């Protein structure tokens, strides 16, 4: 330690531990750990929460050994493009190695959050038996398990507070898994089972909810009928977050008024979602709590205007809105004038594959919201047409954007008025929005836009590119710029070997790079792997051309996934994946 800080060395470890306990963000704790060996030792031995953005970046046993006091872990597996079927289903991301290491080294683990991992029923069983004080299990976008595994969790985790299965794919093997929660279970605070496809026994659920007086989040699946929702709400009027089940029924005025008063009784409701198969007759039943809502998720609700706008316009305090393009431009204009506190907007396509009946959602809706909602900072927008002028207006209106993801559904669509590429529009976004962390580009784009992004997007952490660019320079601009880039995912772009090899060291500063259907050759991958031992260069070739080791250098690479790691090449690659 430097001389003038010698006083610090006199403090016992416990004092530093206490000081570090005020550092809540991982980045801050990481920074503290780099100051000196002493702080490194004290910090990591007192760290309670660990975040592993790529499950293959470190060996589980190593992570468990380095941070012995961890109580909460977040582990992420497959690359983001796995969401869109671009990653082979057997690619990897299995949770066994992690769960085994944690069962061994973290017996006091309380919270486990997996994202895009393959979690087997055996894993769930091991989790259920290994951690005596287990409180939170969150499986987001996971698969590999069934309701039998859930039954094991329900039966054995005595102090379970949160069970979250958001957007996971769950096999139905155990019909009444909910009944495995013992009568003594009263600790549940959050239950999100919206993704389950099978029937959930509403009576058992009702009894469970009745005895869990602290339940705050309840997200049902489509099988729970409206009639049963009434009973559940009556037993949990303290709910803050509700995901309804099926939101339609035969016309029944008595049901309507019972539903209306049950919902009105939930005075703390802030988040509303669900609305599976919505019927228009029952929508007004939620009107009474609209003003209190801060988050509304209608992205699975096929409600059209005017009912859709009627509902949303009542939600004057909305911070977060997820909706389908059925809202149309007119609806977004209404949102712009009603929801002045809006921070996040996501508009999903109702009919992404069929062009049969185009919905009237264009760039106008986006411009309207950008003008009317001063706190808007996060946008995900699917549409079919865009102009540079609109993007320039959005950039001018909302320099506070931190996340801008625009998906123009038809690849390579130009500015529909001028027929030009959308380079100037997206350039305006990155130049104006200095705090932009996440960007997805689409439409017709040349290398010029990447020049702007590379030069201006100084805080950009995640970039998604599809069907864009002219050649190698596009990728070179990105890799040689974008100082804070962590994740880069590219598909169907004419980017080749040169920019990768020229910017090899950049790849070690990032979490990962995905490239598919580009112009990279096997030879470049071999060179890269040789030059960068701390990168795993995974080549995925599904067309079964024979072992990659025998292929020549000029063999084109279908899919490429490069990530930094201290664990070396992984041992669980399937046939189609080759670590160079």
């Amino acid at each position: 330690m430097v001389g003038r800080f010698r006083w610090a060395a006199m403090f016992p470890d416990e004092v530093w531990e206490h000081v570090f306990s005020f550092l809540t963000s991982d980045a801050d704790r990481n920074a503290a750990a780099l100051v000196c060996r002493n702080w490194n030792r004290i910090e990591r031995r007192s760290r309670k929460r660990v975040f592993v953005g790529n499950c293959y970046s470190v060996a589980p046993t190593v992570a468990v050994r380095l941070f012995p006091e961890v109580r909460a872990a977040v582990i992420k597996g497959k690359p983001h493009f796995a969401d869109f079927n671009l990653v082979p289903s057997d690619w990897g991301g299995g949770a066994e190695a992690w769960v085994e290491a944690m069962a061994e080294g973290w017996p006091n683990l309380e919270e486990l959050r997996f994202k895009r991992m393959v979690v087997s029923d055996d894993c769930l069983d091991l989790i259920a038996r290994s951690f005596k004080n287990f409180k939170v299990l969150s499986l987001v976008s996971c698969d590999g398990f069934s309701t039998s595994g859930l039954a094991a969790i329900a039966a054995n985790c005595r102090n379970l507070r949160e069970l979250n299965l958001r957007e996971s794919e769950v096999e139905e093997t155990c019909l009444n898994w909910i009944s495995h929660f013992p009568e003594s279970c009263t600790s549940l605070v959050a239950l999100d089972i919206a993704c389950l496809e099978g029937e959930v026994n509403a009576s058992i659920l009702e009894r469970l909810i009745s005895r869990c007086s602290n339940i705050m989040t309840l997200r049902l699946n489509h099988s729970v009928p409206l009639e049963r929702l009434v009973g559940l709400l009556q037993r949990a009027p303290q709910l803050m977050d509700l995901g309804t089940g099926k939101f339609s029924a035969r016309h029944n005025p008595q049901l309507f008024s019972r539903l209306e008063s049950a919902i009105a009784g939930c005075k703390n409701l802030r988040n509303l979602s669900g609305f599976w198969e919505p019927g228009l007759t029952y929508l007004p039943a939620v009107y009474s709590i609209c003003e209190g809502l801060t988050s509304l998720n209608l992205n699975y609700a096929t409600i059209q205007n005017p009912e859709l706008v009627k509902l949303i316009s009542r939600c004057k305090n909305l911070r977060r809105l997820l909706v389908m393009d059925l809202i149309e431009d007119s609806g977004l204009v209404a949102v712009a004038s009603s929801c002045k506190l809006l921070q996040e907007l996501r508009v999903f396509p109702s009919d992404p594959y069929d062009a049969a009946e185009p919905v009237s959602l264009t760039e106008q809706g986006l411009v309207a919201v950008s003008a009317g909602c001063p706190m808007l900072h996060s946008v995900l927008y699917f549409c079919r047409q865009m102009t540079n002028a609109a993007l320039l207006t959005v950039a001018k209106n909302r320099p506070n954007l931190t996340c801008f993801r625009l998906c123009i559904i038809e690849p390579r669509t130009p500015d529909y008025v001028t027929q030009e590429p959308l380079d100037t529009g997206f350039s305006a976004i990155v130049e104006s929005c200095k705090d932009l962390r996440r960007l997805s580009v689409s439409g017709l784009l040349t290398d010029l836009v990447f020049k702007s992004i590379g030069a201006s997007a100084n805080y950009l952490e995640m970039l998604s590119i599809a069907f864009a660019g002219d050649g190698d320079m596009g990728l070179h601009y990105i890799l040689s710029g974008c100082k804070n880039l962590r994740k880069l995912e590219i598909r169907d772009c004419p980017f080749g070997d040169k920019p990768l090899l020229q910017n090899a060291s950049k790849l070690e500063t990032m979490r990962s790079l995905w490239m598919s259907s580009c112009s990279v050759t096997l030879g470049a991958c071999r060179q890269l792997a040789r030059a960068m031992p701390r990168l795993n260069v995974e080549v995925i070739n599904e067309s079964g051309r024979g072992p990659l080791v025998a292929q020549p250098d000029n063999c084109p690479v279908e899919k490429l996934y490069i990530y930094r790691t201290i664990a070396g090449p992984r041992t669980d690659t399937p046939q189609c994946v080759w670590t160079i």
Partner: protein
Amino acid sequence: MASYVEDTELRLGLPGSDALATRGSKRSLPEDDAAGDDSSCRNGGSGSAAKAQVVGWPPIRTYRKNSFQAMKVESEASGLFVKVSMDGAPYLRKIDLKVYKGYKELREGLDGMFNCFSQGEFSRKEGCNGSEFAITYEDKDGDLMLVGDVPWEMFICSCKRLRIMKGSEARGLESRH
């Protein structure tokens, strides 16, 4: 004037795809929709009828795609969906007839959607009395009928699509009865 007409013309294709190629291309009749999504319900200018779907594009979660398809199929199986067009309006709507109890609710629902009946009185014979628009429907046999003549239950079984037309045009239908 010509561009306005073009803008409001009902087209089965993506806006932004080249406008020139669409002119003159055959617009498939509504009945063709029943033949399946892969039939000629595509704009000739943007590619062949059976447009190859790019893997993983648009970037929507498989989970969402599956649940949306399932929802679509399920809701259309349990509902009685018919298309509604209004003369002069550029876009079609789809409504579920099962949601309405009778002609009054149907009229109210359509009024809410299209804002067409703010004046005029509803009469049992679907009067165009003073109202600018009238609701007509196409029945199982393909005939164009005035809405309101038959009992409601019979109506929802035979109605294939609805059309809101100008009162003056509907008067011709009324004289048939």
